[in-house]
Structures are given as C-alpha cells and as structure tokens.
C-alpha cells in the first residue's frame, strides 16, 4: 500500500508560538488521483502543504513524499503552485516557465520549448515573449501554474489554485488539472470553494481547526447527510404539515423535509390519500457544500467556537 501512495503523513503537528496550527493531521494520497484538501480559512491547509513539501519542518509527526522521507529528495518530481503567487516581473513569460522548470532539473532549452507549447495550448500563445509585469493577474497565475508543470512532475501540489481567476480561466485550470491526472500525475490541491472540489476530486480530506475531520470520496462526504425531498401539493391545506416529518420547512409553494432511512414513499402515499395531490416532487441529494458546512460546523461546536 505505501508504494501506491504519493503522499503519506502521520500525526503532523506544527506550532506557531503556543498555538497548534496543524494538530496531528494524517493524510494518505494515492498515486494518480486528484486529492483535495478542503477547509475554511485558517484551517491549516497551507501549513500542511508546506510541511509536506519540506518548506517548513513539522514539530511532530512524519511524512513521505513519493517514497522519500526527506521531501527535498523528491524535489525534481514535484510541481508546486503556492497560495501567494510570485514571479519575477522583469522576466518574459516563457523564461519564467523555463526558470521554474530549471529549478526542478529541466534544462533551460527544453524548458523554453515546452513553455511555448504549453502557453499555446492554454490560450497564452500571444504572451510568450511578454514580460510578467505586462500580464493580467489571471494570466500571470496561469503562467505560474504552467511553470509548475513544465517539468512534467509526478506530483502536483496546488494551494488555492482557483483564487483570483475569472470563470473562463477557472474552467481552463480545471481542464489542465484533469489533463495532468490523465497524464499519470497525482494532484493535491487545497481549496475552500466546494464546487471545484466536487467536480475534480477523486478523494478529499476536510481540515478544520488544524485537525482532519473527514477523509474519503466526494460521494462518501455527501453520504454523511440524508437526502431531502421537496414536495409541492396541488392545494396547500392546513393538514399538510401534520402528515410531514417533524423537520419539514415551508418554502415558497412547497415543503422541504428529510427523507427517512425507510424512504419517502409512506409520506407521499399519505399525502395523496389525504387528497393533497402532487404538483411537484424532487429528491435532493446533499452537496459537498452541505457536508462541508456540517463537518466544519460540528468541529467548531466541538472546539467551543
């Protein structure tokens, strides 16, 4: 199993002053997957990623990166897009990408060639020779992302990659991440935007308050919450409320309620028998957003926040 893991971390701890910013986080990221690290602001996501990459040393616990106990030894097989984007403003876009590849062992000549190909493939062909300072924020961010994949890493770590991008570039970035996964790379990314995680992640972990609160697939996360029904009667009488479950809420013309483990059939049958009829009925699966709010909210309650 360890051979199948791109990243393995056990009991990672990081203190800033007296505060445990990361407090015993375990992670197991299988190779070839897109893995999301989700959490609210200040949850410890970035610190966890920085420890995994060896930028900072943990105060406790252990981690391996592509089988190396010292992350630095795997440096050439890793690509990284930090949360705080940074490029040399006076560099040309092509040179910036090649430079980032060179830091990871790719020779500059090959780096420049690949940079041009990558930029053209991602709609930045016109900006190959533009200086970074001339690019828009979104374009510069995309250039930096291309710099993190130019050496074709086995592991790509992206910290909040979607922040600051417009919808078009967000979609482009999603496609790029999927393409990297399809190429065989493992992608670990952090975000607090659930929509991206829901679309992209094969597995995910939710971190809150420095601790890991959930680990599994998106479906498993959503499965933590029961499904809900949205029912709209033909004519809304006073007796409808009496036939619905206790948590039923009146929303607009209809009602929303949690479906019991036994299903919604009994409730619906009773409503029909009582003559309220069905004008509309939909079954709503809870989204990752709901699961996230529930998990993080529960964690906050436990922590007394």
């Amino acid at each position, binding site marked *: 199993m360890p051979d199948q893991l791109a990243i393995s971390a056990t009991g990672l701890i990081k203190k*800033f002053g007296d505060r445990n910013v990361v407090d015993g986080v375990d992670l197991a990221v299988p190779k070839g997957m897109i893995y999301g690290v989700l959490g609210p602001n200040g949850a410890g996501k970035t610190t966890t990623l920085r420890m995994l990459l060896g930028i900072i040393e943990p105060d406790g616990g252990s981690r391996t990166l592509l089988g190396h106990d010292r992350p630095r030894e795997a440096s*050439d097989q*890793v690509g990284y897009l930090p949360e705080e984007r940074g490029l040399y403003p006076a560099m040309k876009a092509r040179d910036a990408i090649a430079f980032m590849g060179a830091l990871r062992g790719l020779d500059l000549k090959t780096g420049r060639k690949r940079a041009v190909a990558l930029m053209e493939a991602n709609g930045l062909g016109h900006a190959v020779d533009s200086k970074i300072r001339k690019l828009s924020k979104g374009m510069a961010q995309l250039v930096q992302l291309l710099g993190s994949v130019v050496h074709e890493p086995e592991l790509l770590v992206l910290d909040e990659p979607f922040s600051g991008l417009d919808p078009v570039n967000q979609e482009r970035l999603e496609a790029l991440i999927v393409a990297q996964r399809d190429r065989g790379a493992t992608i670990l990314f952090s975000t607090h935007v659930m929509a991206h995680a829901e679309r992209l992640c094969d597995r995910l972990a939710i971190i809150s308050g420095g601790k890991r609160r959930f680990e599994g697939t998106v479906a498993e996360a959503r499965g933590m919450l029961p499904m809900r029904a949205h029912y709209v009667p033909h004519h809304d009488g006073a007796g409808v409320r009496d036939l619905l479950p206790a948590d039923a809420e009146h929303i607009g013309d209809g009602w929303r309620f949690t479906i019991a483990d036994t299903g919604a059939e009994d409730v619906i049958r009773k409503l029909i028998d009582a003559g309220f009829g069905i004008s509309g009925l939909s079954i709503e699966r809870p989204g990752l957003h709901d699961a996230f709010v529930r998990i993080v909210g529960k964690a906050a309650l436990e922590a007394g926040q």
Partner: protein
Amino acid sequence: MSNPPIGNFRRMVRQTLTIARRDFVATVFTPTFLIFLFTPVIMLSFGAIGGFGASSMAGGTGEKMSIVAIVAPAQQAAMRATDARLRKLFSPNDQPPPLVMEVPGDNPAGQANIAFSAQGSDASAALYGDLTEPTILYGGHGRGDAAYLAELAEGTLRTTGGSMAPLSKATLTSLVHAKPSSSGRRESAYFTVFGIFFLTLLLAGQAVGTMAEERNNKVVEVLAAAVPLEAVFFGKLIGMFGSAILFIAFWGTLVSQVHAILPASFASALGDIGPAVGEPAFVLLFFAYFTMSYLLLGGVFLGVGAQATTPRELQMLSLPITVLQMAIFGASTVAAARPDSWIAKAAEIFPFSSPYAMAAHAANSPTLWPHAAALAWQLLWVAIVIMIGARAFRRGVLQSGSGKINWKGLFGRK
C-alpha cells in the same frame, strides 16, 4: 515522466547555478547596471581617503628612508661636513633623507644594490665609485635624492681639493626593475587592503537587498519549495559575484592601460611599489582574497537583508555591518603598515578581516603557505555564514507564518 534522479550534491550545485544565472542576468542586463558600472566616479572621493592613508603611510615610513654613500674613510668627514652645509639650504619639511656612510668593500656596486633590498635597510639612492665619476642608483621615489648625492660628491671634492678640484660627473641609474623596497611593499600592502575594501564595500553591499526582491515578489515560496535555502543564498551570492567580476574586468582593463599614458617618471615611481610574493602570485592571491571577502561580507549582507521587510529595515540593518567593515579596514591597514604587530596577527585570524590582512601579508612577506591555510579558513567561514543566513531566514521568516521577523525563534532549537 520526470527527470532521472540525481545525487543531492549535484542537484544542489545545479540549483545553485540556476539561481546564480538568473540573478546575474537580472542584474547585468538592465540599464541600471550601466549606471552602477560608472559609480567609480565616486572613486574620486575614495581616492582622497586613499591619498590621505598613503600619505600617512609615507610619513610613517619616512624616518626609515636613507641615502647611502659608499666612500673611502678619508672622504667621509668631508662628505658629512658638506651634507651638513647643504642641508641648511632645505626647509625642515624638504630635508633629504639621512645620509648613511659605508666603507667600500670588494664589490661596491653590489653593496649599493643591497642597500635597496636588504631587510631593515631602505635606501632611496646610493652612491659608489670614485667621487669624480660616481655611480648613483636610485629607486622609484629617489631621483631627487640621487641628485642630492651628486651635489654631495661635487661638494666633497671641493671641500677636500679646493677650487682646483675636478668637477664630479655622476652617472644616475634608475632601479626600476629592482625588487620592491620595504616601503614599496608596505605601500603595495596598503593599496591592496584599500582595493579589496573598496571593491567589497561597493559590490558586496548589493547583496543586502536581493532577498528582499524575492520576498516582495513572493517568489521565495517557489524557490524554497524547489531548492534548499542554502542553495538560494549561495546562488544569489554567486550571481552577484558574477556581476562584480564583470565590473572589475571593465575597470581593471581601463586601469591596466593607465601606465601607458603616465609620464615616465611617474611610471618609474610606481615601479618601486610591488608585492613581496611576486606579481603573478599576488594577482592570484588578490583575486582569491577579494572572492573570500566578497563571499563573507556578501553572505552577511544577504543574511541580514533577508530578514528585512522594508527598505527602512534594510538601511537600519546594513548600517552596523558597514561600521564593522570600517573597523575591519582600520585593523587591516595597521596590518599593512606593521605586519609583525599583534593587531596584524589578530586581523589575519579574525574571519572577516582575514582576507584584507592576508592580502596585505602577501604584499609584505614572500612566504606562500600561510595563504593556503588562510583561504581554507575563510572558505569555512563562508559556509558558516551562508548556513546561518539560510537558517535564520527559514526560522525567522518562513516559519513565522506571518512574514514578520521571528527574532525569538531565530537561533532556537530546530
């Protein structure tokens, strides 16, 4: 999919050179580098300081200079009387060096040459041979003193032989290619210390702001994730050193051509200045010590500058280093002037003054082996300075999570 795995050391060297190359290109291929290249116009002001130091040096060594007359004992009293008489014509500040009389041996010409090169003896001019046709040798600064010796010969003949005495016809010979005198070696030592100090002050100071660039651009996170911080620091130093070499090559080429346009007498005076180890070895040692000085001071500047978050902090942090550098320069000039003093020995051992003091040592003493030991010692300290700088950066900046300096944790346990 990725590049084949390589050893840690090779990887680090490669990463260091990648950073160095980026910094070199970013520094040199900019219009501001041209402005920087011409900053030596400031040399005029430094030249004033240098001139003052050299004049102090000359004043300090003036007492030891002498003019030598190798004459028969029978003529010595007359020559001394003539010397006393002629000196009255000079103002106190323009007095010729003291006259030293020697009795001619088997080889008066060799005796005169020895007067220029023997330990403890420092002649500016030396006379030998018959006083009617004496030969007078003189060093770089000694043409005036040689003329004075010619006058002495003439006067001595007139004193002993009256007005019927034949006129003296002296032959004056310059010793341009002679071994440098001890004062020439000391002057050489002083100029060496001054040269390394000036170049280091001018060039290493640039390193103070280079990490600030990465911090402001947020590139540091990208670098720190890919490259050990030691490689980042060392790469930056090498990159800046490359631009320093370019600077030196440019000005060195210009300065090396200066002698071609100097008057012959001035060139002859410069000929007396020279290092004890000989010029080829001295050039190599000068370069080696400049390199060490640059890496040491640049490493300190880089490490301290990396802690700063604003230009004001940069200025405040670099001021104490500059003061320290001035103190080092002071100690090293003492080492140049008094190579056997305890201050000289201390300056040679203290890592940050060692490059200056050992360069002065090379000018003053021909022994070569201490330089191998000194260079190894200085290299060790370069590594220590870079490691401390990188560690301080990692603990003080990267670990803090806030971007501010974490002074408390800076030197704590890892």
